[in-house]
């Protein structure tokens, strides 16, 4: 009974259960009303932070080939570690606003072309060196110069020139961008001494913890940075130590959380999430994010160059069925454009496309397709459940008389041989903090990752106009038009937005949702504490 009560109390603390529910459950366990009320008060009194202890994260997405060089990061483990030791200039807060890290304040000219970031006064890297605007400049240089191998290269390419002015780092853009601070929140852009030119893998930054041991593909351990600028251990970053443990196997990860060997895990599989949540010592926390699973067609390649066929496929798709069966409800339906309510300036009035076999048949007939098989390529690694999702899609297409054929590809080499190469395949997008960045990354004519070959000059013009537009109402209107256009004509078939599903021990306090990423956007080690 104690376990059960503790479990309910933890749910109260986590904000997942209200007083009425708690009292009801407690009564069912035979606890007196007075006692239950006291327990509720204790649980609800958001406990004050406790300094100390070790926070152990079991994380999927680490390989023995990982490096501490931020430019090379592409999976969750290096990012989890990176957010311990490093900080970018600015970061997106859970509410979608911009929060200063290495930069204390920032401002732009009216045309959003020149941006000035004032570096926080007197803060130090973990090696004791004071952070200067020069370090910020060199970091951006390393990610954007012509030798760059950085995953952020596409993001920082729009920068025309940069300079240092005292403690201010100034960026000038070719085309004004009201969202520039959002671009600089990219996880690759951790500010390093001299930009990391001397030693990119040194793991020296301004973060709340410092790297102690690094065994690539196995684990990383961190110690509290005693000089952390944002405050002492009882104010922020409460743990003495943080451990990031690589647990790529889903069962190993869940077992580690259940047996208490780790305090939190990422990527709880949707099919076991509800079951796991019943365990008394932990909670499953789902966060609505911007990531989405997609079927992408190259609109410049037959037969996908025919919009009627694309519409037929879009109508044939049963989105709710996919959310229920592939995500087990841990997600929401998509509407064939990559934006959802988690983005600022989202237009909720754009009508949701419904599953309609009738319309699918109608559009398919209009397309005049010759009936040859339409090949959809998929792989287990395209997104979790991609093979099953492709099969579901195939079945609903079959019901509409569309000859969709699923071809399974190996995981190995999928991103180099199939995605962005073959005309129709499964893929996923992690989402971006703002609409401009999402569209710029994959829907601008010149984008490297334009994986639907969406090259529409009118769309590009609207994107650029919205980018420099500082009036939010006008911006929202332009984004709404762009969304509708992509929804009705694009090569993107978007069945669902997926939630981040984390498993968290009930010992961990102050857990909150952050739509920017799993594990509180990888700041759990900084914001939570152990009871």
């Amino acid at each position, binding site marked *: 009974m104690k376990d059960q009560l503790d479990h309910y109390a933890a749910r109260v603390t986590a904000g997942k259960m209200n007083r009425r529910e708690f009292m009801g459950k407690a009564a069912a366990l035979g606890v007196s009303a007075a006692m239950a009320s006291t327990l509720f008060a204790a649980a609800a009194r958001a406990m004050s932070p406790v300094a100390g202890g070790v926070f152990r994260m079991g994380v999927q997405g680490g390989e023995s080939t990982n490096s501490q060089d931020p430019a*090379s990061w592409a999976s969750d483990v290096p990012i989890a570690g990176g957010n311990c030791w490093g900080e970018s200039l600015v970061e997106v807060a859970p509410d979608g606003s911009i929060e200063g890290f290495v930069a204390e304040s920032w401002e732009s000219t009216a045309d959003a072309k020149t941006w000035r970031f004032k570096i926080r006064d007197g803060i130090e890297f973990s090696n004791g060196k004071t952070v200067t605007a020069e370090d910020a400049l060199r970091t951006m240089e390393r990610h954007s110069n012509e030798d760059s*191998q950085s995953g952020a290269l596409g993001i920082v390419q729009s920068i025309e020139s940069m300079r240092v002015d005292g403690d201010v780092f100034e960026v000038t853009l070719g085309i004004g961008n009201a969202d520039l601070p959002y671009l600089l929140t990219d996880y690759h852009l951790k500010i390093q001494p001299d930009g990391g030119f001397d030693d990119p893998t040194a793991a020296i930054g301004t973060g709340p913890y410092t790297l102690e041991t690094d065994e690539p593909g196995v684990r990383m351990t961190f110690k509290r940075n005693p000089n952390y600028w944002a405050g002492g251990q009882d104010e922020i970053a409460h743990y003495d130590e943080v451990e990031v443990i*690589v647990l*790529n196997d889903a069962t190993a990860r869940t077992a580690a959380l259940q*047996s208490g*060997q780790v305090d939190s895990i990422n990527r709880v599989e949707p099919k076991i999430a509800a079951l796991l949540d019943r365990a008394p010592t932990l909670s499953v926390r789902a966060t609505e994010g911007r990531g989405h699973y997609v079927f992408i067609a190259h609109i410049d390649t037959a037969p996908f160059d025919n919009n009627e066929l694309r519409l037929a496929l879009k109508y044939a798709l049963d989105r709710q069925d996919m959310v229920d069966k592939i995500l087990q409800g841990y997600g929401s339906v998509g509407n064939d454009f990559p934006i959802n309510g988690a983005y600022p300036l989202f237009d909720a009035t754009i009508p949701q496309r419904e599953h309609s076999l009738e319309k699918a048949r109608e559009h398919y007939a209009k397309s005049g397709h010759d009936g040859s098989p339409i090949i959809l390529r998929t792989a287990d690694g395209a997104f979790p459940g991609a093979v099953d999702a492709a099969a579901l899609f195939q079945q609903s297409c079959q019901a509409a008389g569309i000859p969709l054929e699923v071809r399974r590809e190996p995981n*190995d080499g999928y991103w180099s041989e199939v995605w962005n190469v073959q005309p129709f395949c499964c893929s996923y997008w992690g989402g971006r903090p703002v609409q401009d960045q999402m569209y710029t990354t994959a829907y601008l004519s010149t984008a490297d990752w334009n994986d639907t070959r969406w090259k529409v000059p009118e769309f590009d013009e609207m994107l650029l106009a919205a980018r420099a537009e500082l009036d939010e109402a006008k911006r929202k209107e332009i984004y709404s038009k762009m969304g509708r256009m992509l929804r009705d004509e694009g090569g993107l078939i978007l069945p669902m937005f997926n939630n981040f599903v984390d498993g968290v021990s009930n010992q961990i306090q102050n857990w909150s949702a952050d739509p920017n990423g799993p594990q509180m956007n990888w700041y759990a080690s900084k914001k939570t504490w152990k009871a």
Partner: protein
Amino acid sequence: MHPVLTLVVQRLALGILLLLAASALIFGLTEILPGDAAQAILGQAATAENLANLREEMGLDRPALTRYFEWLGGIVTGDMGNALTNKLPIADQIAFRMSNTLFLAFWAALISVPLAILLGLIAVRYQNRWPDKLISGVTLASISLPEFMIAYILIFFFAVQLFWAPSFASINDGMTLLEQLHAISLPVAVLTLVVLAHMMRMTRAAILNVMQSAYIETAELKGLTTFNVIYRHAFPNAIAPIVTVVMINLAYLVVGVVVVEVVFAYPGMGQYLVDAVVKRDVPVVLTCGVIFAAVYIVLNIIADVVSILANPRLRHPK
């Protein structure tokens, strides 16, 4: 020179040739695989520009043969070089991973080999009676289950339900030997269950074969107990096939345990090799492959030598 010594020298020389051939084969195969390290690292984030930059930095823009001989030159002079992906020295990584793999293999072997032989002897002693059937039944059942399934079953009972053993085997230098053994208890149990049946059945078969001989009948007529007959007369003559199968299983414990490593998140060689293949880190793949091949070759030489030494007719050829 003693004929056994000649044989060892010959085998070693052949082994080195075999290693060369293996490395060439592995290199050829990794070249055939689609994509390269630069593409594998950048994945979805690849652009033509950062791909080209990364290739140039990794030296992937040079011809394949140049890269192979560079690696070969390095390894012959004892320099394994750095990994393409994270630029860490391969030697350090392998030292760390290999010692973990050997640690796990050693304890699994220490338990499973004597246990398998003992169970084999018992099975022969009670041939076709219930102890024989029980031993055979249980070991065959455990070898028939996929190893990850055994692992999950053990994790469920011993880690999640009973909290007796950790669910993943994380070991580091800061732990005492006892703590390390506790950490690897479940993987050792799984490996033991997996290799037990093969060795035990082979022991049983080899001894039963010898038991048909006339001298066993003589020994029995002398009045020795059954167990003594098996232990003193049958077992020594059955050593050669037993050693062969033991060596095959030892080799498996070193090079074939990647599934167990993944399930228990154990930082061994198998996982390292798989990561390297996925990321097309060719120098690491080559080095691991050659080490694995060397383990096989050396263990096989040992098996042959032991077979010869165990057989007086081969030991003293006319």
